[in-house]
């Protein structure tokens, strides 16, 4: 226990405290490092670039997370139904992308998206006009959403699948005795049994979306004009501290995003648990 707590303090609690400390100071040209209270926070609340990014990940989350979780749930139910040929192949195949590093995922999808050497280009030449333009202003967020969904749908499917596996067999037997059909069993037994894992999966997905960084940041190297450095709050914080040298303000942004995430995750959990009880 003790060694875990020591390292835990070093890599979790200490940076958190340090970030809080940093966010209350500001490095001025004259006077050096000064205590400024909540000035950085006030600045962030009026910062259009920050809110732009925050709204973008918010919108991304509202669309991408439900699609991904619904797909994951359908896949889990299908595999659990016992009505598939070769279901273990499907389980492994859908899960496999989770093991692929984000860098490789983005590079491969990025190549496939590209007009020059990718499938989008193949398709466009085949139909004779630019039908698919994933790397354009209109579609870039969808293109990112597709990469994220691809990477994590299998992971969520496994969470749901393991929850389905814990349903006691007697429940199915009882339902069969009562004459319940397949869809009735899915709706009345399986879907309610997924509630707990759905709450967990939703919270993890929300945390993931708010942290969105790898995919847009790597894709940026392919299409720098479409993705500004403040595309997501995390990219903004990263660029503020490593390009702009504004570490105090970057720490402030990180703390605000952490707070927003924690509040939303907490609300989801409260709502999820209440549903479970009723």
């Amino acid at each position, binding site marked *: 226990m003790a060694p875990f707590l020591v390292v835990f303090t070093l890599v979790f609690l200490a940076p958190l405290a340090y970030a809080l400390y940093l966010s209350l100071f500001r490095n001025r040209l004259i006077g050096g490092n000064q205590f400024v209270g909540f000035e950085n926070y006030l600045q962030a609340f009026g910062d259009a670039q920050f809110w732009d990014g925050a709204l973008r990940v918010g919108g991304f989350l509202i669309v991408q997370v439900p699609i991904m979780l619904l797909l994951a749930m359908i896949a889990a139910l299908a595999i659990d139904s016992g009505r598939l*040929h070769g279901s273990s192949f499907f389980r492994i195949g*859908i899960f496999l992308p989770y*093991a692929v590093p984000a860098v490789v995922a983005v590079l491969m999808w990025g190549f496939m998206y590209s007009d020059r050497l990718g499938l989008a280009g*193949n398709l466009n030449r085949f139909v004779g006009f630019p039908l698919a333009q994933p790397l354009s202003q209109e579609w870039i967020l969808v293109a990112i959403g597709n990469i994220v969904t691809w990477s994590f749908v299998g992971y969520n499917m496994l969470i749901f699948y393991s929850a389905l*596996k814990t349903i006691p067999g007697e429940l199915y037997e009882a339902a069969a005795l009562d004459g319940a059909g397949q869809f009735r069993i899915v709706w009345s037994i399986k879907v309610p049994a997924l509630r707990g894992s759905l709450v967990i999966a939703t919270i993890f997905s929300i945390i993931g979306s708010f942290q969105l960084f790898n995919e847009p940041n790597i894709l940026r190297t392919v299409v720098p004009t479409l993705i500004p450095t403040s595309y997501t709050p995390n990219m903004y914080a990263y660029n503020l501290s490593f390009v702009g040298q504004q570490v105090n303000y970057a720490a402030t942004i990180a703390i605000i995003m952490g707070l927003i995430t924690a509040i939303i995750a907490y609300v989801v959990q409260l709502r999820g648990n209440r549903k479970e009880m009723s």
Partner: protein
Amino acid sequence: MSTRAIVTSPKKGRRRPELDRSDSQGLPASRKRSLILTIAMALFVTYSLLPLVWMLINSTKTQENLIGSFGLWFSGDFAFFDNIVETVTYNDGIFLRWMGNTLLYVVVGAGGATLLATLAGYGLAKYNFPGKKAVFAVILGAVAVPGTALAVPTFLMFSELGLTNTIWAIIIPSLILPFGLYLIWVYASESVPTELLEAARVDGASEWRTFWTVSIRLLTPGIVTVALFAIVATWNNYFLPLIMLNDPNLYPLTIGLQQWNLQGTGVGADPIVNLVITGSLLTIVPIVAAFLLLQRYWQSGLSAGSVKQ
């Protein structure tokens, strides 16, 4: 039938009945296999495997043939082995160096993370001590803290300590996996009977000895699961090395590949797209192999983790 074979733990006899519920489920004779459902799922799995197939096919092409040829079929000379040779020898074999670095970070970082999570999770599950509840609440809270939100302050702190641009900047933060601790805690509560520990105590075995001889065997599926997730997390880590390292000799594969890709853009571009693709393939082969070989362990470990939610 194959679904059941995999969720069954190899140490079946030792597991408690709740965990084996899945086995009793079985397939009622009335349930027929559905062709339509299978086709729908085949489309799904095609989507999941498409980029990997694309990568595999295009790793056989030369850079000139990559452009303009149909992405999902072979074209031109079969350059697969040439590409591999070029990948591992390019720039004095820097790719192998990156692979070695990644292995080091994974073995020390993920190995340490698994050990710490196992000891701490087991301790939380099986021993009582003052302040246990508070410790647990803080750790669960940490699961929800966005990892990247901590990255910038961690970097600043490490740079004060002079740890940035060293291997420790990657290894130390990798050592903590709150989710892993949670999983071991759940798993230990479920699968290590307290009576068994008491029996060992009565026999005069020390706590340490009991852990290493009795508990660790019961915990194996849980430990393998945590280890695999820790390995994936470290093997695939991008953000942390991106901010912590600027010496190419310390890069892991992920950062190195991204650097190679960047080489193809901007002024004085020297694209090595074929090496990026082949390098990507070589990057995922070990991790995919680990998942496939150990699947019976992690799948049973995961099912246990979902029991208590």
